[in-house]
């Protein structure tokens, strides 16, 4: 007798069962995904491309500074110039929705794993599994459950991209100086309060790195999802492959690169204190603190009966 483990059959059976028992759930999710995608797509696709480019440039200026603003403008003009604007917007909407969902799911999971060793031990191999399983493999059952369109693309993307969010959130929270957490406990703070006031703020750089990776992985997966009719830049890449169309392939491919660089630089700048916004914010906080200090010092003078002249700092 031939040796054969019928994994395929089992998994088939499992997905059939899922489909039969939870079709209402998948249908609801499908509608939700489509609605979210349409909403985001509408936001970016409705205004003329040049307006969007200008807004992105301003955002780039605020986030990182003028060099990035110039780079972003040229990149987006390039996409417009190779006639990939609509595709890029579709892909962007797909990335944003999938990444948003991945963040919403992975951050709480990461926090949970950081606070509970058992959860951590279970999640670790699951996350390894999700991230190493070849991306295409998700697409097939996703298609079965969500039918063709953006919904299977979003679900496959979000599952594929989730892992670094969980991992880096857990890592960040576990990496917070143990003594500082103990300080919270020693003064009688509730664990939720310690999480909110100490652990999450101090783990922020790591959590941000996780979000950055989620977005980058989402983008790479979104291109693959184009193969199953999710549209966008991936759709054109797929078309270029099947038609051996080198020029179309490169135009769509380079647009993906531009999008990737923009998304990466934007998300990497969070919390790094680059750009105009951070500068404004910093000077605002510094001024507030200086004012407060001046007020304290002045009150001190009053308390002493104003014998000394008011100190000027």
């Amino acid at each position: 007798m031939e040796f054969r483990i019928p994994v395929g059959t089992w998994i088939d059976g499992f997905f059939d069962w899922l489909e039969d028992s939870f079709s209402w759930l998948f249908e609801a999710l499908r509608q939700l995904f489509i609605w979210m995608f349409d909403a985001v797509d509408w936001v970016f696709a409705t205004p003329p491309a040049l307006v969007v480019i200008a807004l992105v440039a301003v955002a780039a200026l605020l986030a990182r500074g003028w060099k990035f603003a110039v780079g972003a403008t040229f990149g987006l003009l390039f996409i417009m110039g190779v006639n990939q604007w609509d595709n890029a917007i579709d892909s962007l909407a797909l990335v944003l929705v999938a990444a948003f969902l991945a963040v919403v799911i992975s951050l709480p999971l990461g926090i949970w794993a950081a606070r509970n060793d058992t959860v951590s031990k279970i999640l670790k191999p699951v996350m390894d599994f999700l991230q190493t399983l070849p991306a295409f493999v998700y697409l097939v059952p996703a298609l079965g459950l969500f039918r063709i369109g953006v919904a299977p693309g979003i679900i496959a993307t979000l599952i594929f991209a989730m892992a670094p969010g969980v991992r880096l959130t857990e890592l960040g929270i576990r990496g917070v100086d143990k003594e500082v957490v103990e300080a919270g406990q020693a003064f009688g703070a509730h664990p939720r309060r310690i999480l909110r006031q100490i652990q999450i703020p101090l783990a922020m750089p790591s959590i941000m790195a996780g979000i950055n990776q989620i977005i980058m992985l989402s983008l790479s997966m979104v291109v693959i999802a184009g193969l199953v009719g999710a549209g966008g830049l991936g759709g054109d890449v797929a078309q270029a492959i099947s038609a051996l169309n080198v020029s179309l392939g490169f135009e769509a491919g380079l647009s993906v690169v531009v999008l990737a660089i923009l998304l990466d630089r934007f998300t990497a700048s969070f919390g790094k204190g680059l750009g105009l916004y951070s500068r404004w914010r910093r000077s605002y906080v510094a001024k507030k603190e200086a004012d407060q200090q001046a007020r304290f010092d002045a009150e001190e003078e009053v308390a002493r009966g104003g014998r000394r002249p008011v100190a000027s700092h």
Partner: protein
Amino acid sequence: MNDDTIALRAEGLYKVFGRHADEAVIQLHRGTPRDELGAGTTAAVIDASFEVRRGEIFVVMGLSGSGKSTLIRMLNGLHDATAGTVEVAGERITDIPAKRLREIRQKRISMVFQHFALLPHRTVLDNVAYGLEIQGVALDERIARARKVTEIVGLKGWEEKHPSELSGGMQQRVGLARALAADTDVLLMDEAFSALDPLIRREMQDQLLELQAELGKTIIFITHDLNEAMYIGDRIAVMRDGRIVQIGSPEDILTNPANDYVEQFVQDVDRTKVLTAESVMRKPRAVVHIGAGPRAALTIMRDEQLAGAYVVNKDRTIVGWVRDRDVFDLVRRGEKDLAPVIRSDHGAVATDTALADLFIPSLEAALPLGVLDSRDRLVGVIPRVTLLAALGGEPEAAATATPRPDPLPAEVVDQVLESAVGSRAAHAKEAI
């Protein structure tokens, strides 16, 4: 049980990390040595019992790894005790609901950390106010109170800075202020000054002592530095391999080490700063009551072979001292009153004077240095040899050494005493 003078009580505390913790406690209780518990089981604290009195600085001292941090973390429940109980202000804090434990931490017991553990994203003032914030004190009030404490620790003008802008010593002042602002009776300090460089550390120790004198907090202070322990501790618990091997005053530990381990530990401590006059003084040998008269005084000095003696009132309060030669003259002249020759510059010191501060007075005093209690009673003397012997770590050596500041030759004294008995004036002249 609810003795008001006890701020914190630990009874039979055990902490075992790793597998089979409860079994390990039973084994330890039966006398199994700590290193035979098997791999993966660490007994960090073994059968620790002690009481900390209100307003006391209780120091826990031991080498790194001896279980100090584990012990102190059981005192506020950061570690659950494997066995035993902890009471804070008469209330048990082991095995109580998390909510109640949080309340006790808010109101009764706060902590200062070795590496400061400040919230880096908050200003100094917000850090100091942290405990009050957790207690639910309203914003205005907690700012006002935090400002007051910030001033007390000497950080006025730094309220709106962030911890990273402060030096190590200043950061630890913030840590101390945060604990003080919470206004708990008990303060736990785990190697709070160990990360600071020596000069700053001494400054912080002095400040802590001042604050403690002013605010009367109960402080449990952990250190691996014996000199620090001796300097700030009212009582010291010495830990070794998870066990408390001795609890006592700094002098106790220095002069009566419970075992070889403690003795070795205390070998290189600076004794002159720890030992006090009281701990090295001897019974005064030659003391003259003011009413005794010159003849009695001279007799005593002859018997003890001394060149002088302290003069005290009936209740032992000091009057001054006399030289044998002066008294000799009085006796020869047949005077009845000692008063004219009593010198008031006795230079005696208080019982709690550190050895380091005895050297100069000891040089200046003509007699063995007198030691007075708080009511000016002469309770002891310190001959110079005793002082030297105490420095060498062997106070007993003084007993075999003989102090002799050239008293009058005994025969001469005998003659004058005898002649004074008979026809005083005539014989006294002969004798000369």
